[in-house]
Every structure is written in C-alpha cells, then in structure tokens.
C-alpha cells in the first residue's frame, strides 16, 4: 500500500457529541473505549474468581482433610476439587485470557492506534460485550445449579461430558450450563472478530499502511482472524454435544457403554471426534491468548528501550506465521488418544515448526534491548518478565511436541507447568504490561510506580516459584487433575514440593492486592497524566488522556512514518511520533 502523506495534514471535522444519560454513556454504550473498559472489568472479576479457585485447589492438594466451613460437606470432596479444576480452567482461558487482551485492550486501542474514530460496527461491538457478559453469568451459574459445576475439565472430553449426571456429579445441569456459556462466548467472539478485522482492513488513517501498524495492532488483527476461523468450530461441537446430552443423538458417544451398571442407549459415535473439534479450536485459542501479549511486549520494550523494534517486518511475519501454523498443530494434544500415529508424526513436525517464529520473536526482543537506553518503569518490567517467562514456558513445549517424549509426560504436571508459564503467567504479564502502560491514557491519571514495582517483584518471583517446580513433579510422574495423591505410592514423596508451590501461590495471590489497590486508588487519586507521559510514538499518545468520544477531538491524524522511530540519528528528540509532519521534526543542525 502506498504511504503518501496527506497534503495539508490531517482533516478537521466537527467534534462528535457525547451520548447523554448514564445508561447510554456507561452501560449500553457503543463507544469502543467504554466497551473496552467493560471487557477489562469483566476480565478483572473473572481473574479474581479464577485465582480464588486455584488457591482452593492448591490448598486442597496440601491439606485435603482440612475443615472448610464454606464448602458443603465441611471438607472438599473429590468432585468438588474436579469442579474447581474445570471452572478455573474455563474461566481463566475464556474470560480472562481471551477477554482482557483482545476485548479489553484491543477494543480500546485498535481504533485509536490506526487513527479511526471507533470500530467499524459499534453496535455489534456492544452486542459482543453483552453476550460475553451473559456467558459469564452462565458459567458462574454452573456453581449454583443442582449437581454443581461440571467435573470434566475445561476440555470437556466425552463421554464423561456427554452422558449426563450418570458419569459424575456436576455432569447434569452443570455441564449444560458450561456448554451454553461457551456457546454464547463463541458467538460473541465471532462478532468481535468480525469487527476487529473489518476495522483494521478498512478504517486505517491516511498513511497507516500495514507495515506502519504498531505490532500491537498486528497482534490483535491476527488474533481476530484466528478467532473468526476457530470459534465457529467450537460452537458447532458444542451444539452437537448438547444434542448428544439432551436429544439422544450419538455424535460423540459410542455404542455399548455401561456406566454404573447401566447400558447406555447410544449408537456408534466417536469421542475422538469431540477431541478433534475441540482442539481444532483449542490450539488456535491458546495463540489467541498469547499473540496480543506478544504485540504489547514488542511495543513496550521498544518504547522503554528507546529503540525501534528489532526486525519489525520479521516480527509482523512471525505473528502471521504463528497464527497460520497454529491451525495445523492441534493433534499434539492427542498423541496418546488413539489417533493414527502417522497423524501424530505429522502434527509433531508442524508443532516443532511453530517453535521457529516464536524463537525469532524472542531473538528480536533481545535485539530490541541490545544497545538500548532502558528505562525501568513498571510496564517495561512486565514486558521484560514476559520475555523471560515466554522463554521458560515455550521451551518445555519442545518436549511435549515430540510424541515419544510426550508418552512419558502426557497428562502429568509437566504439561501443567508448560501451559501455565506461557498462558497463566506470560500472557498475564502481557495484560499487566498493557494495563500499566495504558492506564494513563485510559483514565487520565498515573498509577503509582512504587506499588507497581512491588507488584512486579512479588509476581515475577512468585510465578517462577509456583510453576518451575511443577516440571519436576511432572517428570516424577505426578498426574494432573488428581484431587489427591494418597492412592499412588510414587507420589507421596512429592508432597513437600506441593507445599512449597502452595505457599508460593498464596503469597503471589496476595501480592495481587497491590495491583488491585493501585488500580482503583489511582483511578481517583493518581497524579494527572499528560497526553504522552511515556514519550511514545503511536497515535493514541496524540490525543487527550482520556481521549474524547471520537478519539481525536474532531481532528483525524495522518501517519507519516513507522511506529517505532526512537533515537533516530539526526533528530533532536529521542522519538519521532507517527503523527508528526516531516517538516515539524526537530533536526540537529
């Protein structure tokens, strides 16, 4: 695409009028900024719930017989533990990792960073949020329905999830609510993806060619494409599962099953089919969870190292490659499932390949830092933490990608360590980096640096303390989703490690209070933020903090250069923003 500057600079239109009334302004708003904050707050609620669930899990693993007055029965039972496992995974993957980075920050900043006044379809955007909200209500409701929450894991494998209550507590109404919630989430995400893609393609400001888009935009854009192509498949699977459960069909349930001495009247479906449909969605889903974070990491690293992103083009292509390959590797979740071993080999080769663009990104992050002038503000700390955690978590993937080694490690804590490091910490660090970075723009106030730093140190060290030892437990044969290890001889000696991880988890969980306090306190009492407190280069820093209703107050920017022009030789300032006309750039004489 050509990148011609617009003669006479940006054009001016009459500023847009704000909607009136509390409801239209804050509840049923079509403003992408309000919707972004709504998604963010939803994710914040979900992550608090998710963390509480995980702390209960970790507590149970170490003190299984402790009296817990708030739990029915006074003590946590096996099925309650499994319900926690299921709900923790579901809530975190969907309502935190898919919601905050994309629905939250993507919604807020994609239009602004490309110079648009809003998303392409604002009312559709509002609908997406409220359907997501409804999905969240449904998943929380699963705790309250008869039988309680489902116990089949966030992966919902059939026949455990397909036969109803007879396979276990929570498999009745609870599992149904799970399917309904996920299906609603799929619909909302599809609509959201549509918006993101159309906006990125059609609403870019003059001069904003694809190769001048910030890497955050690349991240959101490719993530949306993944979502568009993946969520429909999960929705289809969910519908078929619902039919198996309530309409007597047998898509996923074979004939001749006997559960609790009762012969099930089903005819010849395939549990493997559910796994294929689920993981065809499920693998792109985890890239949906990490790609926005990668975009944020690149963006923040560059800004605070005062250097362009090293290898911008390679980074953009790597995001695309990860997205593309992400659709071809789903079978690596199924190496021991009974799927053809030849397919297993093919999936393995493709999975090892996806390590390549990920490695490229890591090298380029290091390259961005190299020779830089690094300022250690809180957003930067979390971006640096992201790089470290992504390396740690990504490398264990290389073990799991090989089916021979996976024979040993499948369904052990090694897998749990791997995905928590990449999703449960690295991706979360991406969200934290984004929050600390963009809080001034979103709310017009600065967050406290000291509190931010304390939050970072505790969380970074804490996360490693929780999840590194899990590799060890996995190698020793510690099996995941075990409510307790007492029945298995070889697990007994691992209890001290579990204790260590539990204590680390409680401390790290508690340390999040620093973040929550900082966030809400700064909303009201933080020092006022200027337009561009970080001296950053992308379009969102050209407008007020917070931005007016149409993002740019009636004037629409034009873009004259790439997004990471830091420390350009010959320029007086160590950054040249995208919106500055060439004639206005102060040059050294």
């Amino acid at each position, binding site marked *: *695409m*050509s*990148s*011609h500057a*617009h003669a006479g600079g*940006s*054009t001016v*239109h009459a*500023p*847009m*009028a704000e909607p009136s009334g509390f409801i239209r302004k804050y509840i049923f708003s079509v403003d992408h900024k309000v919707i972004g904050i709504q998604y963010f707050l939803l994710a914040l609620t979900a992550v608090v719930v998710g963390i509480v669930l995980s702390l209960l899990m970790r507590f149970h693993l170490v003190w299984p017989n402790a009296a817990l007055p708030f739990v029915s029965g006074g003590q946590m039972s096996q099925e309650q533990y499994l319900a926690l496992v299921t709900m923790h995974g579901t809530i975190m993957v969907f309502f935190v990792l898919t919601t905050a980075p994309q629905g939250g920050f993507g919604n807020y900043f994609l239009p602004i960073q490309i110079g648009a*006044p*809003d*998303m*392409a*379809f*604002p009312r559709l955007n509002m609908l997406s949020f409220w359907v997501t909200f409804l999905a969240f209500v449904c998943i929380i409701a699963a705790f309250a329905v008869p039988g309680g929450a489902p116990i089949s894991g966030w992966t919902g494998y059939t026949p455990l999830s397909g036969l109803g209550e007879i396979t276990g507590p929570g498999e009745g109404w609870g599992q149904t609510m799970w399917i309904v919630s996920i299906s609603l989430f799929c619909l909302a995400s*599809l609509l959201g*993806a*549509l*918006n993101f*893609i*159309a*906006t990125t*393609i*059609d*609403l*870019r*400001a*003059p*001069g*904003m*060619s694809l190769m001048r888009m910030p890497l955050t935009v690349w991240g959101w854009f490719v993530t949306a494409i993944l979502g*568009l*192509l*993946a969520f*429909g*498949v999960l*929705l*289809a*699977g969910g*519908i*078929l599962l619902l*039919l198996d459960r309530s*309409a*007597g*069909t*047998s*898509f996923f349930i074979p*004939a001749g099953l006997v559960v609790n001495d009762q012969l099930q009247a089903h*005819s*010849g*479906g*395939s549990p493997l*089919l559910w796994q*294929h*449909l689920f993981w*065809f969605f499920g693998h792109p889903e985890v890239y949906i969870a990490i790609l926005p974070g990668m975009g944020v990491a690149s963006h923040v690293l560059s800004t605070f190292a005062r250097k362009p992103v090293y290898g911008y083009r390679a980074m953009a292509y790597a995001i695309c490659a990860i997205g593309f390959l992400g659709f071809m590797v789903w079978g690596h979740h199924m190496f021991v499932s009974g799927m053809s071993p030849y397919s297993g080999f093919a999936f393995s080769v493709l999975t090892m390949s996806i390590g390549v663009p990920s490695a490229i990104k890591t090298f380029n992050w290091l390259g961005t830092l190299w020779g830089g002038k690094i300022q250690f503000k809180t957003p930067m700390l979390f971006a640096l933490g992201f790089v470290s955690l992504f390396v740690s978590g990504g490398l264990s993937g290389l073990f799991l990608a090989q089916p021979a080694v996976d024979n040993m490690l499948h369904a052990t804590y090694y897998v749990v360590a791997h995905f928590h490091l990449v999703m449960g910490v690295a991706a979360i660090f991406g969200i934290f980096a984004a929050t600390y970075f963009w809080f001034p723009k979103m709310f017009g106030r600065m967050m406290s640096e000291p509190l931010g730093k304390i939050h970072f140190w505790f969380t970074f060290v804490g996360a490693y303390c929780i999840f590194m030892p899990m590799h060890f437990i996995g190698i020793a044969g510690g099996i995941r989703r075990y409510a307790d290890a007492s029945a298995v001889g070889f697990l007994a000696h691992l209890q001290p490690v579990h204790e260590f991880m539990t204590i680390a988890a409680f401390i790290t969980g508690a340390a999040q209070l620093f973040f929550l306090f900082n966030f809400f306190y700064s909303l009201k009492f933080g020092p006022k933020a200027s337009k561009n407190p970080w001296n950053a280069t992308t379009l969102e820093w050209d407008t007020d903090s917070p931005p007016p209703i*149409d993002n740019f107050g009636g004037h*629409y920017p034009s873009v004259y250069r790439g997004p990471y022009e830091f420390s350009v030789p010959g320029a007086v300032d160590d950054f040249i923003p995208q919106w500055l006309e060439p004639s206005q750039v102060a040059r050294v004489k």
Partner: protein
Amino acid sequence: MPSTIVTEEMELLRVDKGPGGGGFSGGGGDSGDSGDSSGATRVPQRAYITGMFIALAGILMFFMAFVSAYIVRKDMPNSAWIPLPVPRILWLNTLILIASSFTLARAHSRFTAKDEDGFRHWWATTTVLGILFVAGQIIAWRQLAAQGIFLATNPSSSFFYVFTGAHGVHLLGGILALLYVQFRATRKVARGTAVEVVSMYWHFMDGLWLFLFLLLYLGR
C-alpha cells in the same frame, strides 16, 4: 452496467481504495459517509462489504465443522451407517433456492439501473421463494417424521437434521434481512451497500445449500 447511470453508493465502492481513501478524511465530505451527519462514527460503506466477507468466512468454518464430523462418522469402521432416504421434495426446494438467486441477481441489476419498481418486484420475489424454500424444508422434516425418522433415530438422520436445521436458521436470517431492506430505510448503511451485502449472504447460503445437498445425496 450502463456507464452513465451509477448510484452514489456504487461510486463510493469503487473510489474507496487504499489508505488515503479510508473514508472520513477523504475529500468527499459527507457523500463518503452514511448520510448521518449528526456525528456518529463515519464508516466507509466498503467496510460493510468487508464485514460480510468476514462473516461468511466464519459461517463457513461453522458448517465445515459439521461437514467434517459427518465425513468422519460416515467413514468410521463398523459404523453401522444406515443411509437416509433423502426426501424427494428436497430437489424442488433446491430448484426454488437456485431460482431465488437468479431473481436476486435480477433485483440487483434493476437496482443498479435505478429502476425502483423493478427492484422491489424482484427483491420481493426472492423473499417469497426463500420462504417457500423454508416451508419446503419443514415439509421434508414432517415427511421424515411420518416415516419415524427423527433427530436421534440414527447417525445419518442426526446429520440430516443438523445440516438442514443449521442452514435453515441461517436462511431465515437472510429472509429477515431481505424483508428489512424491502420495508425499512437503513440509516447508517447506504441502501446500495445493504443490497450488496444481503445479496452476498443470500448467494452464499444458496451455494452452501447446494454443497450440503450434494453431500447428503451422495452420502446416502
């Protein structure tokens, strides 16, 4: 298409290209927009076309999930697959749907020719044919039910109902869109754009039905 008679909206669709023509800073002022000058977001009409392409991609993946499930299930060893006798009326329904695409194309060209009456006539015909299709599908369902073939009867009947049901629901959405364009003036979306995107959707649903029908017929 007559070169001298071209709607404003069609002009826009051809002019809006590249980042410079992004819509709101293009020199065309309000003619580049939705006509809603009260300041709501100004979206280039092109975005609605892009949006429909994207929507169709998502919908396609949804149906492809069902299709791959069908193929897997059918070809399972010891599958106990009892082929479904495809109701004959489905042939008629298919012809009706194909006809509706032709009438829709006709309506589109009448619109381009600024022949409002012609447009409304052929557009309405399309809607009627669509409704007839859905009615025909319901009749097919009742014929199967009369033979004792329901959703859970056997795997091939399950897929039949899922395919036709999912497609039918989407087609109903298309019918609602057709009616909306017929009777209501759109605000943000220029009428030409609305005609364009609804047509895209309808033709896609037609093509999808042909594919599903072929699959069901060959798989019996």
